[in-house]
């Protein structure tokens, strides 16, 4: 609590002063810390990586749903509504909301990578991502993981990052694959409830697919997947293993008698790249039967 004035002076560039100070001590060779479990540490040892230290990045921002007009369809209730997604309509009224989510994760991960680079690490494994609401539309985005250094003469020229724990990284590396970067696909979509949609929701409608909501969630997810593909291509990787596939939907009422539905899709993954070009993987699995009580 002594350096509150120092925090207030920080202009948002680089790392906050306390984090920069911790990294300076770590780079000078203070005892390293890690978030690794025992199997993760053993796996990294086998694959040729040494832990360098625990790293984290965080970012707090206010994210308001900034569009007063919702989908923008107010006034004409007879017309058939359209699904508007952030990926295909970058100028949509709610675009700042989608950008805020993207920059929240990108900034938190970026600060974590800066810390790792500062202590001379080659990558960060076992990255945990969390988003916490602090009330009043203020959210904290956090990324934390364990920085590692490869026992190799070549330096990769970039800091790799992955959500995979150390033992999974080891299995991938021994099979000829290398994690490259945490890759996100984030999209937001909105759709006005038109007359047709309202009819499909009444209790007399019977068994019926609600076409508008189905389109909304499918288009929003499709957008997130498209953006993820672009990201993996931009990284230069060969593919990605997905960590989570999240979707939330909610209802907003931007005006009297005007209801819209919003969908938010977030895909978190690690882009991976193949360095072993032969057809057969270098390691083969053994079939074994563990001598322990099975769970069922």
């Amino acid at each position: 609590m002594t350096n509150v004035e120092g925090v207030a002076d920080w202009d948002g560039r680089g790392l906050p002063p306390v984090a920069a100070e911790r990294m300076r001590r770590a780079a000078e060779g203070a005892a390293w810390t890690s978030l690794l479990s025992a199997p993760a540490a053993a796996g990294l040892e086998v694959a040729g990586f040494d832990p360098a230290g625990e790293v984290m990045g965080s970012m707090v921002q206010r994210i308001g749903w900034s569009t007063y007009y919702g989908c923008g369809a107010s006034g004409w209730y007879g017309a058939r509504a359209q699904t508007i997604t952030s990926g295909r309509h970058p100028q949509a009224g709610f675009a700042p909301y989608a950008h805020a989510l993207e920059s929240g994760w990108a900034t938190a991960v970026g600060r974590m990578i800066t810390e790792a680079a500062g202590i001379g690490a080659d990558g960060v494994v076992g990255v945990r991502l969390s988003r916490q609401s602090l009330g009043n539309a203020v959210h904290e985005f956090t990324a934390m993981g364990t920085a590692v250094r490869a026992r190799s003469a070549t330096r990769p020229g970039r800091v790799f990052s992955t959500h995979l724990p150390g033992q999974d990284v080891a299995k991938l590396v021994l099979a000829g694959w290398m994690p490259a970067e945490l890759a996100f696909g984030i999209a937001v979509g909105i759709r006005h409830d038109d007359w047709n949609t309202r009819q499909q929701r009444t209790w007399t409608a019977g068994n019926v697919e609600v076409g508008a909501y189905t389109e909304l969630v499918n288009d929003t997810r499709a957008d997130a997947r498209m953006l993820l593909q672009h990201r993996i291509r931009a990284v230069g990787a060969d593919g990605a293993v997905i960590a989570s596939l999240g979707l939330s939907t909610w209802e907003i009422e931007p005006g009297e008698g005007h209801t819209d539905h919003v969908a938010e899709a977030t895909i978190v993954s690690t882009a991976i790249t193949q360095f072993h070009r032969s057809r057969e993987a270098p390691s083969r699995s053994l079939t074994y039967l563990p001598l322990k009580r099975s769970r069922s």
Partner: protein
Amino acid sequence: MTADPTQLGIPEDAMRRLAEMRPGQATSLFTSDLSVNEFLLVREAGFRPLGLVLGSSIYHVGFQFGRWNKNQELEVLSQAMYHARELAMTRMEVEADQLGADGIVGVRLDIEFKEFGSDLAEFIAVGTAVKSDHPAPEGRTWRNNRDQPFTSDLSGQDFWTLVQAGYAPLGMVMGTCVYHIAHQRFWQAMNNIGQNVELPQFTEALYDARELAMSRMQAEAEALHAEGIVGVQLRSHGHRWGGHTTEFFAIGTAVRPLRADHHIPTPQLVLPLTD
């Protein structure tokens, strides 16, 4: 691990590859919902992941009129649960077909009731589309008898073991039955107070409902000319319908034999040092 990692150039080659990465190099990208274990085992079984495939449907479940003092299937609800899952599954299969896949592994079927409507639910099917490096034995295709990609809810580990043992998945098969168990009449309830007795009406209702779900699943497997069904799960879901109405849902993977014998190498016994 028998080989020495440093002899294989690990992590030297891995670091070199990272240093050489350039944007937009890859010709075909894949995304996969599999865990690392599953991903590596699917590769070892001779399949390449093509991409994550997904199908979804938001469905309005209709209102059921019924006589609540009688054991009965609630057909409107059964149909809704079946139709919506079918929509989601079919959309996932279409995505896989467009990628030119031989099959879909690790399929998950989920239902999520939405906050903004009590009778609205999203039905979602997610899996990883795969393509084989080699045709199936005897020059046959891996696709099923409808020339559609096979589907399977087996994990990558189970899929690997199944293929090793000389079986191929044909498709996920399912059956559902939403059943209402009659409310007890007043005098019945009075007679049973303080006694440990079987309630034959309840027992019979549960037998009936499960039988309907399982026989529907079997009928689907027969339509695929399957030899059998593996990994069957028989679940019961209360969803949002209260204590007397339950969905009985049977799901499994229909399989066909790839060869006459089904031997796999005898597994080694190991004693793990972890829980």
